[in-house]
C-alpha cells in the first residue's frame, strides 16, 4: 500500500513539473514579456533594467525554478489585459465556478444513481426504455446546444428563469455566494442542469450496467432464494457492490465538470474562472492562461490521485494483488 501510494505520488509530482514547464514556456516564449509590460515609449536602459528584474538573462533552469517558486506561493504575475495580479482575479472568480460545479455534481450524482437504479430494476418497463433512449440523444447533443435549448425554453418562451449571470450574490468578504438569495438560486438552475446533464447520463448508464451485472450474480439469486425482500436485495445487496466503479467515475468526472464549466459559463455568461479563461484565449492573455492551466492540472492530478488511492482502499481485491509492489 505504502509503496504504491508513494509511487503514485511521485508520478503526480512529475506530471505537475511537466505542466509547470509548459506553463513557464508559454510565459517565456509566447509573446515578449518586455513588450507586454513596457509600452511603446521605452529606453534601452528601461529594457535592461526590466530584463534584470524579471531575471530574463538567467539560465533557463534558474528561471524555471523561480517561476515554480512564485507559482507555489500563488504569484502568477500580472494579467496583460486587466493589469491586476492574476491570483487576485482568479480568487474573485473562483466562487462562481465552484458553486456551479458543486450544484451540477450533486445534481448529476443524485439523478444519475436514482435513474440508474430505476432503469436497472425496471429493465423492460416503458419508462426505463424511454429514459435510456432520451439519454442516448443527450449524449450526442453538444453541451452548448443543450444550454441554448434550455435558455430558449425557460427564458425566452416561458420567461421563468434568468438566461445569464449569477443573479444577486452575497459578499462574504473572501467568498461571494449565490446560495443566499432567491435570484441567485434561480440563476443556478439552468447552468447546473446544462453542465450536469452529460455527467448524469454517464453515471446513470454506469449504475445501470453495473446493477444489471450484479443482479445476475449468484449471491443475489441466493438472497432471493432465502426469501429476503426485493427492496432489501436491490439496495442492501446489489447497490452496495455497484458503488466502487461509480465512485471512481464520479470522482474523475469532477475534474471534467470544472473543465466543461468553460462552455456552460460562456453560454450563460456566468462570471466564473472558465469565462475568464476563454476571454484570456481570445485576447492572448498569457499569464491568465498559464495560471489556469496550472490550477486545473493541480486539481486533475489531485483528483486522479485521490480516486486511485480510494479505489485501493475500497476494493480489497486490489490490495491483495498489489501489496507485493506490483
Amino acid at each position, binding site marked *: 500500500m505504502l509503496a504504491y501510494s508513494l509511487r503514485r505520488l511521485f508520478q503526480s509530482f512529475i506530471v505537475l513539473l511537466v505542466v509547470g514547464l509548459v506553463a513557464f514556456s508559454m510565459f517565456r516564449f509566447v509573446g515578449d514579456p518586455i513588450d507586454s509590460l513596457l509600452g511603446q515609449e521605452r529606453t534601452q536602459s528601461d529594457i535592461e533594467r526590466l530584463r534584470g528584474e524579471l531575471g530574463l538573462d538567467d539560465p533557463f533552469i534558474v528561471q524555471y525554478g523561480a517561476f515554480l517558486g512564485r507559482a507555489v506561493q500563488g504569484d502568477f504575475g500580472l494579467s496583460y489585459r486587466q493589469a491586476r495580479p492574476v491570483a487576485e482575479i482568479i480568487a474573485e472568480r473562483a466562487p462562481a465556478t465552484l458553486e456551479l460545479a458543486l450544484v451540477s455534481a450533486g445534481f448529476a450524482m443524485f439523478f444519475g444513481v436514482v435513474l440508474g437504479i430505476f432503469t436497472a430494476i425496471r429493465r423492460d418497463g416503458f419508462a426505463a426504455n424511454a429514459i435510456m433512449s432520451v439519454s442516448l440523444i443527450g449524449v450526442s447533443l453538444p453541451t*452548448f446546444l443543450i444550454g441554448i435549448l434550455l435558455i430558449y425554453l425557460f427564458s425566452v418562451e416561458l420567461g421563468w428563469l434568468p438566461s445569464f449571470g449569477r443573479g444577486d450574490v452575497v459578499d462574504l468578504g473572501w467568498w461571494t455566494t449565490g446560495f443566499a438569495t432567491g435570484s441567485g438560486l434561480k440563476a443556478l438552475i439552468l447552468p447546473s442542469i446544462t453542465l450536469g446533464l452529460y455527467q448524469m447520463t454517464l453515471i446513470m448508464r454506469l449504475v445501470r450496467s453495473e446493477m444489471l451485472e450484479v443482479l445476475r450474480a449468484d449471491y443475489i439469486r441466493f438472497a432471493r432464494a432465502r426469501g429476503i425482500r426485493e427492496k432489501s436485495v436491490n439496495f442492501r445487496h446489489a447497490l452496495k457492490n455497484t458503488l466502487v466503479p461509480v465512485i471512481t467515475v464520479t470522482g474523475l468526472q469532477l475534474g471534467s465538470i470544472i*473543465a466543461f464549466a468553460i462552455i456552460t459559463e*460562456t453560454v450563460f455568461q456566468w462570471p466564473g474562472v472558465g469565462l475568464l479563461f476563454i476571454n484570456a484565449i481570445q485576447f492572448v492573455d498569457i499569464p491568465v492562461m498559464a495560471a489556469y492551466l496550472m490550477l486545473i492540472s493541480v486539481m486533475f492530478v489531485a483528483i486522479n490521485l485521490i480516486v486511485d488511492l480510494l479505489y485501493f482502499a475500497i476494493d480489497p481485491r486490489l490490495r491483495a494483488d498489489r501489496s507485493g509492489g506490483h
Partner: protein
Amino acid sequence: MADTTPAPKPRGRLAHWWDGDFAYQFRRSPVAMISFTVVMLMVLAAIFAPLIAPYDPFDPASLNLMNGFSSPMEPNAFTGETFWLGTDDQGRDVFSTILYGLRISLFVGAAAVGFAMVLGITLGLVAAYVGGWVETIIMRIADVQLTFPAILVAMLIFGVAKGITPVEYRDQMAIWVLIVAIGLSDWVQFARVVRGATLVEKNKEYVQAARLIGRGSGAIMLRHILPNVLSPVLVIATISLALAIIAEATLSFLGVGAPPTQPSLGTLIRIGQGFLFSGEWWILLFPACTLLALALAVNLLGDWLRDALNPKLR
C-alpha cells in the same frame, strides 16, 4: 434487399465486394444506410457548396441590407425576395451560409482526424515496435495527456498558437491552427490502440519471416504490420470524426475557433444565439439542426462500423 443483387454473372471486384460480408451487414442495417446517406449528402453538399448555394454569402456585392431578417419561406417585406431558410441581419441567405459552414466544419473535422490518425499510428507503431525508452516516453506523454479532457487541450493549444502567430495572420491561420489543435488533442486514442495491436502482431510468424528475409524495420511496420491493425483504427477514426466535428463547433461557438470571416457551423450558432431573444429563431435553429444531424449520423455510423468489423459481437 438481398434479392435485388444481380445474379453472379461476370464478377468484377465491386460485385464481389457487394456480395461480401461487410456489404451484407450494411444492407441489413437501416440505421447504417440512413446515416451513411445523410453523411454522404452532407459531404456532397459541402464539396459542391459554391454550385448549390443560391447566393454567395461572402461576396459583399450580392448582399442587400434590405433583405435582412427575412423569415423562412416568406417574401421579404421590402424586396419581395424569398429565402428558403431566411436571412441574417446582413441579409445573408441562411441556407447558403450553412452550406459554406458545413464545408468548413467537415474540412476541419476530417483534417484534424487525419492529422491525429497519422500522428497516432506513427507513434503507436514506433512505440510498440521499437520498445524500450522510446515506448516509455511516448506512452507516458499519452497518459499525461489523457488525464485532461481533449477539448481543454485543444483550447490551450489554440491559445498558445494564437499567441505565436502575428496579429495580421491570425484570422487566415485560424482554420489551420484549429486543425492542429484538435488533431493534437486526439492522437492518444490512435496511438494506444495501434500500440496494443502491434504488440500482438509483432511476434507473429509472418513478421518474423519478413525480418528473416531482411526487410527493414520501416518496411515491416508499414507494409506488414500496419494493414493488420487498421480495422480498429477505422472505427476509432469514425467516432473521432464525430467528436472532432463537435469539438470544432464548440471551440468556434466559444469564439476561439473559426473566425466570422470563415464561419463554421459553430460560428453560425454563436452568431445566431445573439438573435434568440429578438425572435429571429431561424438564424440559430437551422445551423444547430445541421450540426446535430451531422454529429448524430457520423456517431451512428461509427457504432455500426464497430459492430460490423467485430464479428465477435454479432
